[in-house]
Structures are given as structure tokens and as C-alpha cells.
């Protein structure tokens, strides 16, 4: 069993063991990740210290050679092969941001990545809609049947069981919901383009990769990790149908998606 300071969380089948000594932050995290709590032992230990506190579990974010270090506002993340450290966490939103960065790094080792995208389930398959802020991700979510939206902000895409799946995440934009810890095979990836009509256009492999790249949550500056990402996106776009979706702000958009 976990100690009272620990919180087991699994997002996209990536288990994390969050050590959060501060009770208030821990409770907020428990609520935020309620659908993603996992009591089983295991998972990467993540030692969290709030702003002003001292990290008693390692060397702090000064780190060692080979560690991945990322700084966000006044907080920072350090990751090595066996554990991660979050330092200077001020609130649950800061914790959330560091978890996103951490997940992006861990997923890169598991044929997965995080994408700025909304994901909607329909008949057991996942439809992924990507675009920058303002492209219409939350709009798509709001125009989808109740209970079908896995996220309107950050989608977790991962190769499992011989195919690409989209996983529910606790990362939300305007269309706030609890999220669901489920996954489904991806039916298609759609690049959002608001228009005066609803239609889809097939997008070539090269164009797909070019359109996906700016929307991937990617924080490493290492050559090999970048090279691996390029290979992974090539693999993804070669096996998942990619479309440009021209859509009006109406539910009728689903007619062209599932046609």
C-alpha cells in the first residue's frame, strides 16, 4: 500500500507514484486526477516539493549529467532513469504542467506522444481533432454527444496491441470534464479548419507530419529524442488516416466525419 503522502496515478497506462508531502496540494491532485488514480504498487516515483520546501529525496534540479531538466516558471522537473523530481510547485496547475512535460518524455520511450487535440469516442473508436489554440478543439467537444469526449485539449496517442490508440487524459481546456480513463483505436486524425461548409479532405503523409509537428507537446532538445519523434510521427501518420476537416459550428460536422 502507498504511504499517506503518495498518490498513484496512471495516465495512458503510464503509472506514476506521486510523493506529495503537502496535504493541500495532495488533496487537490487527488480530486484533479480522480479518474486516473491507481492503488497498485509500482510506477515511476515522482518527488514533489512545493515552493520554499526542500527536496529530501535527491539532489534537487541541479541534477546529474544525462538527466532531463525542464524549468517552467519558478518550478522545475528533473528526470532520470529511476525517478523524477518536481521542485517549486506552487499549485495544482503547476503540478499539472510538470506532469504533462514528464508524460511527454516517458511516452517517447513507449511509442507514444501528447498532442494538442480533442478526442471524441464514437462507436468504440476515437476521433482526434488537432489544432492550435482557437482552432476549434473545444467547439468540437461541445458539438459532440454527451459523455463521448475524452479531452478537448491534450490527447494521449500511443501504439498498443498492434495499433494506435487514443487515451483519456485529465488535461482539459474550456470544455471541462473529469475525463475518462479509457482508450480506443484511432479512426482518424483531423486537422481543424473552420469554414462555411462541412467536408473532409485526405491529407498526404508528408503534409500530415508537417501539420502534426507544431501540435506535439515536445520538450526535449536532444538530437536522438527528436530523431525518434520524427520516426514515430512517420509511423503514426503512415497507419492512421489523416484528414483536413472543414467545419461549421454545428453538429452536422459529424455527418462528414463518420460517412
Amino acid at each position, binding site marked *: 500500500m502507498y504511504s499517506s503522502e503518495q498518490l498513484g496515478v496512471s495516465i495512458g497506462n503510464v503509472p506514476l507514484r506521486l510523493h506529495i508531502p503537502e496535504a493541500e496540494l495532495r488533496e487537490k491532485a487527488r480530486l484533479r486526477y480522480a479518474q486516473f488514480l491507481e492503488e497498485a504498487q509500482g510506477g515511476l516515483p515522482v518527488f514533489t516539493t512545493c515552493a520554499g520546501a526542500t527536496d529530501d529525496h535527491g539532489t534537487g534540479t541541479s541534477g546529474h549529467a544525462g538527466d532531463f531538466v525542464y524549468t517552467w516558471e519558478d518550478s522545475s522537473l528533473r528526470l532520470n532513469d529511476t525517478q523524477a523530481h518536481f521542485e517549486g510547485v506552487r499549485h495544482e496547475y503547476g503540478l499539472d504542467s510538470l506532469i504533462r512535460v514528464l508524460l511527454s518524455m516517458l511516452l517517447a520511450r513507449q511509442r507514444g506522444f501528447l498532442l494538442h487535440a480533442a478526442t471524441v469516442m464514437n462507436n468504440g473508436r476515437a476521433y482526434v481533432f488537432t489544432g492550435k489554440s482557437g482552432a476549434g478543439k473545444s467547439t468540437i467537444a461541445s458539438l459532440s454527444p454527451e459523455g463521448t469526449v475524452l479531452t478537448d485539449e491534450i490527447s494521449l496517442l500511443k501504439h498498443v496491441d498492434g495499433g494506435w490508440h487514443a487515451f483519456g487524459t485529465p488535461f482539459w481546456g474550456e470544455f471541462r470534464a473529469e475525463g475518462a480513463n479509457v482508450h480506443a483505436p484511432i479512426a482518424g486524425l483531423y486537422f481543424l479548419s473552420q469554414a462555411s461548409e462541412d467536408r473532409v479532405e485526405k491529407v498526404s503523409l508528408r503534409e500530415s*507530419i*508537417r501539420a502534426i509537428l507544431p501540435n506535439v507537446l515536445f520538450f526535449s*532538445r*536532444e*538530437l536522438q529524442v527528436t530523431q525518434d519523434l*520524427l520516426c514515430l510521427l512517420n509511423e503514426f501518420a503512415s497507419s492512421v488516416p489523416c484528414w483536413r476537416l472543414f467545419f461549421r459550428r454545428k453538429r452536422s460536422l459529424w455527418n462528414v466525419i463518420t460517412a
Partner: protein
Amino acid sequence: MSSETITLNPQLAWREIEGRVVVISPADSVVHELNETATFIWKQAESGRSVAEIADLLSLEFCVEPTQARSDTEELLRMLLQKGLVTS
């Protein structure tokens, strides 16, 4: 420039996708997509060929006069050099 050998910048990630080379700079996440001719030159440079050799191969591959091929090769290599994608 003709006897020079061009080296791909080893700090860049790249991959050929549908016949075009896509290059990413990890330092600033800038993405470059090369056109057909630049892709050809890139792949010859990767093989360690000199500028003159690349120009000769370009002439054969794209059926252009050797002088035109040399001019095109040098112009594209200057562009690749300016963008930091290759080093001489």
C-alpha cells in the same frame, strides 16, 4: 567550391518522407522541408560526395546542362549553408 565536400549538420534530426527530406533542429524546433532538388543534393552530401560530383549527378538525374546543374547545386548549397543545415 567544386572540390569541397559538404557535411550534413550532425546536430539536426532528419528523415526522408515521401521523397522529400524533412529536417528538424532540436535546439529551436524549427522544421525544414526540402524540395525535390534539395533532397537529392542532401542525400548525395550524406554519401560524402564533393560539390562537383553532386552537380554531375544532378545533371544526369534531372537532365539539365552541366553548367546549369553546377549553378543550381552551388545555389542550393549556399541556401543550406545559410540555414545551418550543412557545413562546408
